[in-house]
């Protein structure tokens, strides 16, 4: 029996993952044409069969006496939809990273339903879906799936870019994006002449950098802003090569060699002018016999 249950969930798992991928691939706007064309061909057979009804018939649910009640099935289905939407959103905005700006509503709804399932509130008919959906097997798939996505959300630090309730972008974020756009538009303006660009866009770029530094200190940065800043920095330093010139090598070398010269003077002068420390030898009292013995040996040497 146990094996069968596991099997069911493995199937379910596969299905969910494939749906995720498949659904993402159906949104070609952000995908490069190449991969968009390849992916469906792999996935389509599964996604065709994976409607809700069909995988229940596959798993021979009628054999189990304690079947899931309607309410839980409904929750599960909502979970599936929201999960798919959110995962879809994540992959869509993976590069360049814009997940925090675009996926927070999806994440919120997913979190809602997850909390709903995991809460012990009995629904209609006095059933708690927490145990039946989440904890009835070793895999604990719903938990694991959510946990992973939650982990991604946390490590992206998206909360820091959003308002308290995660309903909208915070003012800081909006302001940063505006500043960023200023810089980028400046870059675009001088696309042709890099030396001009380095000079004329410096002000706006510096403003952006200062703002970024401030936000870094206040911990109001999330992955979106970091990534955007990173790309901008690379544009500035690598593409336009607006590096600082290394032009004062001579004074640095001069000062360094002066400093290195000082100890030589110090040691020479202390060697020449300082009185050498002398030790006064003391002759210990020894027995007569031992003295003569020493002399003999010393003589020999």
């Amino acid at each position, binding site marked *: 029996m146990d094996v069968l249950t596991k099997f069911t969930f493995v199937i379910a798992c596969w299905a969910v993952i494939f749906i995720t991928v498949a659904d993402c691939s159906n949104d070609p706007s952000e995908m490069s044409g190449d991969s968009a064309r390849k992916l469906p061909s792999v996935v389509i057979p599964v996604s065709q069969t994976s409607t809700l009804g069909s995988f229940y018939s596959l798993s021979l649910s009628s054999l189990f006496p304690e079947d899931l009640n309607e309410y839980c099935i409904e929750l599960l289905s909502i979970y599936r939809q929201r999960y798919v939407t959110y995962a879809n959103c994540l992959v869509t905005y993976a590069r360049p990273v814009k997940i925090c700006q675009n996926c927070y509503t999806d994440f919120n709804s997913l979190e809602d339903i997850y909390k709903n399932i995991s809460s012990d509130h009995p629904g209609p008919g006095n059933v708690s879906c927490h145990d039946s959906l989440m904890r009835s097997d070793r895999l604990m798939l719903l938990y694991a799936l959510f946990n992973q996505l939650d982990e991604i959300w946390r490590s992206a630090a998206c909360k820091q870019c959003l308002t308290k309730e995660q309903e909208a972008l915070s003012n800081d974020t909006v302001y940063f994006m505006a500043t960023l756009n200023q810089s980028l538009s400046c870059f675009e303006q001088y696309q042709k002449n890099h030396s001009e660009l380095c000079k004329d866009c410096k002000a706006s770029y510096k403003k952006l950098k200062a703002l970024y530094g401030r936000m870094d200190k206040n911990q109001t940065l999330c992955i979106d802003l970091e990534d955007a800043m990173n790309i901008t*920095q690379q544009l500035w*330093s*690598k593409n336009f090569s607006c590096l600082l010139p290394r032009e004062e090598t001579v004074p*640095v070398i001069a000062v360094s060699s002066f*400093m290195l010269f000082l*100890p030589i003077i110090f040691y020479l002068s202390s060697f020449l002018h300082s009185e050498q420390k*002398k*030790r006064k*030898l003391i002759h210990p009292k020894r027995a007569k016999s031992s003295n003569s*013995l020493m002399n003999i040996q010393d003589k020999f040497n």
Partner: protein
Amino acid sequence: MANIAKKVSWSSRGDDRGERTPLLNGAEDGKHDRKLSEGAMFHIGRLSTVDLEEEITPEEDIVRSRPKEIPHNEKLLSLKFESLDYDNSENQLFLEEERRMSHMGFRCLEIRRWVICGLIGFLTGLIACMIDIAVEKLAGYKYLAVKENIEKYTELGGLSISLILWAVLNSAFVMVGALAVAFLEPTAAGSGIPQIKCFLNGVKIPRVVRLKTLVIKVFGVICSVAGGLAVGKEGPMIHSGAVVAAGVSQGRSTSLKRDFKIFEYFRRDTEKRDFVSAGAAAGVSAAFGAPVGGVLFSLEEGASFWNQLLTWRIFFASMVSSFTLNFFLSIYHGKLGQLSSPGLINFGRFDSDTVQYNLYEIPLFIIMGALGGVLGALFNVINYWLTIFRIRYVHRPCLQVMEAMLVAAVTATVSFALIYSSNDCQPLGQDNSEEYPLQLFCADGEYNSMATTFFNTPERSVRSLFHNPPGTYNPMTLGVFTLAYFFLAVWTYGLTVSAGVFIPSLLIGAAWGRLFGILLSYIASSQSIWADPGKYALIGAAAQLGGIVRMTLSLTVILIEATGNVTYGFPIMLVLMTAKIVGDYFIEGLYDVHIKLQSVPFLHWDAPPTSHWLTAREVMSSPVTCFNRVEKVGRIVDVLSNTSTNHNGFPVVIHTTENDEPGKICGLILRSQLIVLLKHKVFVERASSRLRQRKLQLKDFRDAYPRFPPIQSIHVSQDERECMMDLTEFMNPTPYTVPQETSLPRVFKLFRALGLRHLVVVDHENRVVGLVTRKDLARYHVGKDGLEELHLAQT
């Protein structure tokens, strides 16, 4: 003193050797003298081949018998150092006190010992915590200031100003520290480990365990680490622990002139030294988060006086110290109760999945150990010559302060120059492991890789070398860094600042170890086998440290505990072993070199080999100044006030009628005891009046400890000089004696195992013929041509 001065003038009158050409010829003069002194060194060969008929030329005899001045060298024993009285004097007072003490009293003593050990651990941990926080704060301010300045001037131009700012800040910090050390308490200089080693060996180094030394030491360490010198704060921690132990166990401070009237029973050398070993262990424990390593350190350095109960107490002190540090640091970091930072240095966790090692890597580790041994020996040799130069020429305090400041400035300069010229740019790590990333001329979002090693406290650099992911450093950067830091560290150790050598050694080793790891992955075709250079950094660090200090068991355990990884025990042990074997081939460990250079009469584990033919008769000093059982006060005062013979123990003999004939031994009395007796005027003639007063007790002797007043401060009137003093009650009635024929190794063993200070040599009729002290034994050592003898000298 006057006596000696007279002798000197007499010697310089004798021949041209005494003449000193001033100033410019200093160098030649020194060489000339050294040659002479080596020539005059007694080389003791095998007796079997000695030609007894060879006549003694008078000149040589004169050379030997005449006091003379030679430049400081390693083959001297200083008169400044005395032994600790580890042996208990079982005189009548002692027996009386023991009789009076109840069973309960002994129980209380034992409990008090435990309380003291707990206190030692607690205070040591607290001091470690204080040092850590102070260094972090000060260095933080400094690096932030310099960083801001560098950032400003990278854009505007004028980086040489930043360079000067950095150098000046460094020098300023170091100057404050060096001033305190050089002018207030020179004993606080260096790491303090050689001094503690000597103390545990049984040598009383003047002022080494005073409160003033502790204060200067802690202050000096904070200054020198914050001043960016190539030093660590771990060595001084061991010294600090020892001072805390010596202070707490006495229940008073003579520096502060406060007597808390507690722990009076422990006011003698025997007890004090046991506590000092606990303190040293607590210091190691706080420094490295290695309680077991601390215990083993004490065991390794003071192994001859040991018992199991003491070990257990020392372990207790170690654990308490580690825990205290942990607890207070957790409060400081705002994670109360999270006890995850057990030591001052935190090597970080070595995740055992990513840094496994394989059987085929063990030969590589051994090669690294040998390399560490060679580099360590090189370190010691250079430092040895530098130290000799310093002792001879840079001995004035103001010069010492200047030297320290110069080293600080040059350290900053070299660091800056290397950072400036480095082109190695690395992207910022995601977890922001770099505290003060410097961008300089790198692209935005990247930092200068050289700066992570130089622009940081040495400990953080060690940690980043251990743990930064592969590819963080390029080989060129590491090579240049190793070379520069090696010479900076050699140059820095031995300055008049209080600072340790552990961290710089680890850092040098970690740098070349990591380089080694990276090069391996270049050579090997498949990258995956040699994936993580971090473990090579660890092995390199162990090799380098082992090559420099040559500690064995304790260092292995300390490293294992500090990395928190037992699986590395075997490679670390192998590496330390190889490093020691290879290094010992060239020169001794750094601490031993410094002990030698300070002319300390240090007794090693064993007598020098091939010394069995030497007997007590040759070793001992003779004739001996003895006292009669009932002695005239005038004679005692005269003998004690004689500055040329600064004797400390006097055999007490049964009075004999003939003057020349040595008397039969019946006891041994110490200078300190005699002084207390004179102070209390315990004369036979006053016996009746003394009955009315209190009888002299052992407590009176303890109260005077450890700074007995000099004999000059005790006034004895002309009448009193004629009085008599009965020593029977106060002398040690059963001193250790040996017959004249006892071999040197046998005498040595007695000294080392029992912690003796005086050993009376007697003839077959139990008459005193000589006295063996520590200096008589320590002067023999194995040189290039077999046994050599060290000279006694005034320092």
